[in-house]
């Protein structure tokens, strides 16, 4: 569903009457997102900036036809919020809370998969179709329509790279933050097919980091279908301390598993251009651009 998002997609904001909910709903609307409804578990049912607020997702969906939602709720409430949204028929749920317990994410993942829906989270800055809409809080300063599709575990590292690419004249077609949690919704490998199929996308930038094996799985998926579009990558964490989660719960290495070295080797074997620095990636994207 991610690649079909547009400025007309009807969006529900769960937890719209809270501090975060209000702030980010306003930011998203200002960017162009079609926010049609909000929910408030606390029962604050007055409109928020003209957006009608409902008790629950089922009522919101029934009244407005929302198909996507973003849950602005604390980490302990993410599990219930996503299950409620999916049960109400929402097809795409984005969650942004930091610190969602991993076993909660496991339960959410199982439920979303069983429902055939899509979940981006648990902890991400969200996603954007630059120039059209965004779900979450990717910074407007870094968003600029263009030919590069970005997928990233880290929010801030993708901001830096997206911003530098935009400064160099390369904007984005799609931008999805998958988050730095070990158990999550959409993973890098899930984005390969939609990014390759997306007509706006000429090149893919993967912003990875240590821990887990998402980069390796992406490489395996890419090797299978062949790199019809160039893929560029950086992987943060070559200096990460072993056994300690570096800010993201998923950024955890043990022995040879999940290291930058193993990820780099897998990606390069699949034809990805992997860089040690952000500057080198941005420069190479500029150099390669003529061939896209």
């Amino acid at each position, binding site marked *: 569903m991610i690649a079909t998002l547009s400025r007309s997609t009807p969006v529900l904001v769960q937890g719209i009457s809270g501090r975060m909910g209000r702030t980010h709903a306003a930011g998203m609307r200002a960017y162009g997102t079609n926010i049609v409804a909000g929910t408030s578990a606390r029962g604050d049912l007055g409109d928020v900036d003209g957006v009608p607020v409902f008790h629950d997702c089922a009522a919101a969906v029934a009244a407005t036809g929302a198909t996507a939602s973003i849950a602005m709720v604390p*980490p302990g409430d993410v599990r219930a919020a996503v299950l409620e949204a999916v049960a109400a028929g929402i097809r795409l749920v984005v969650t942004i809370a930091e610190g969602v317990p*991993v076993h909660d994410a496991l339960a959410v993942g199982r439920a979303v998969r069983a429902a055939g829906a899509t979940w981006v989270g648990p902890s991400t800055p969200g996603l954007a179709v630059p120039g059209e809409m965004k779900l979450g809080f990717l*910074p407007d300063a870094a968003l600029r329509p263009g030919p590069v599709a970005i997928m990233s575990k880290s*929010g801030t590292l993708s*901001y830096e790279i997206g911003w530098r690419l935009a400064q160099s004249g390369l904007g984005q077609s799609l931008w999805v933050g998958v988050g730095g949690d070990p158990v999550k919704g959409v993973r890098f490998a899930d984005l390969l097919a939609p990014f390759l199929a997306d007509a706006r996308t000429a090149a893919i930038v993967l912003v990875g980091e240590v821990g887990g094996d998402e980069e390796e799985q992406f490489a395996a998926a890419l090797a299978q279908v062949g790199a019809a579009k160039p893929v560029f990558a950086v992987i943060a964490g070559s200096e*990460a*301390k072993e056994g300690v989660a570096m800010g993201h719960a998923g950024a955890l290495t043990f022995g040879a598993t999940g290291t930058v070295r193993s990820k780099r080797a897998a990606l390069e074997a699949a034809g990805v251009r992997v860089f040690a620095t*952000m500057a080198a990636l941005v420069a190479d994207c500029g150099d390669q651009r003529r061939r896209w």
Partner: protein
Amino acid sequence: MLLVEADGKALFRAAGIAVPAGVEAGRGAAPVLPGDGPWMVKAQVPAGGRGKAGGVARGADAASVRAAVAHQLGLRIKGHDVECCLVEQVARGAERYLALVLDPAEYAVRVLFSAEGGVDIEQAAAVASRLCPPEVDAITAAVDELVAGEPEGWRAALVATGQRLARLMLDHELMLAEINPLFVSVAGCVAGDAKVVIDLNAIDRQPAIAALLRARPATYADAVRKLDEGFDYVELDPDGEVGLVTTGAGLSMMLVDEMTARGMKPLNFLDIRTGQLRGSPARLIRVLEWIAERKRVKVVLVNIFAGITDLGEFAGLLADAIAATPALRVPVVARLVGRGAEQARRVLAERMPDIVVEEELEAALARVARACA
């Protein structure tokens, strides 16, 4: 995050999984050895590969145990100083491998078993596995299948151990519970080692694990700090020369990587979470105090890419924090980009005119390199 073996074993014991008789040995008096030898001496660090780093030894008598403890307490393994050793009676039996690990792509628990225990499992020829929903009965049934070829005399004990490990993993919300080697004999199963990865995000509802972390504040310094402060600060090199005040895990990690590759020596990793400062400089003061304690630090680099954060407000808090940390006597380079950057420049120019503000990270890094030279 990874627990040290002794803490993993404390969880095992509580879950009904037998472990060898053992005692911890630190820098104090020599340990009273459990039972008869020989004994194993193992450095208690939350990192793998300690065997290759000299952190595992076998001692036949009290003198060799003491020597091994003394040697290991002087080691630094994968960035962790050895604070404590575990001295255990050597267990006996056939060696097996049993592990439960979350499979993130399948939203499942993967059960792994090998009849070749006690070796680096990546080198083991035959590791069989099953995927299960995160439920005790399903995991137990999978263990039952995986150990079908084991001798009748201890098969039931292996299944019972698998069931207890499953309950432990689900009750304590573990990400990994691995026993390698698992000693098996007709007398039952004994866990020779314990590799347990916990979920810090679940710590509020896991008091037993929180207690383990708090009992070893030095070993789990980074995690305890996160519990107490609500953000991530990881000291990478106590002799580091660049103190980092940064937000965002990925960008902070990348910054550390790029600085190290250029020969700079970052002191720390930090994800301060500017969105949680809520108008108070307290968190910034804490960080600047930790940085100021390290005498080799030559410069502080502040790097904030503000998506939501208002940099004007942040600059005011930064100025407050620097003013409140007189122990910090090194120059500060600030790279600020995003929302409110212009206002931030004005605030800092007025209140902290010595701080150099850059928009480009590369330019800020060049200044940091000059300060270190």
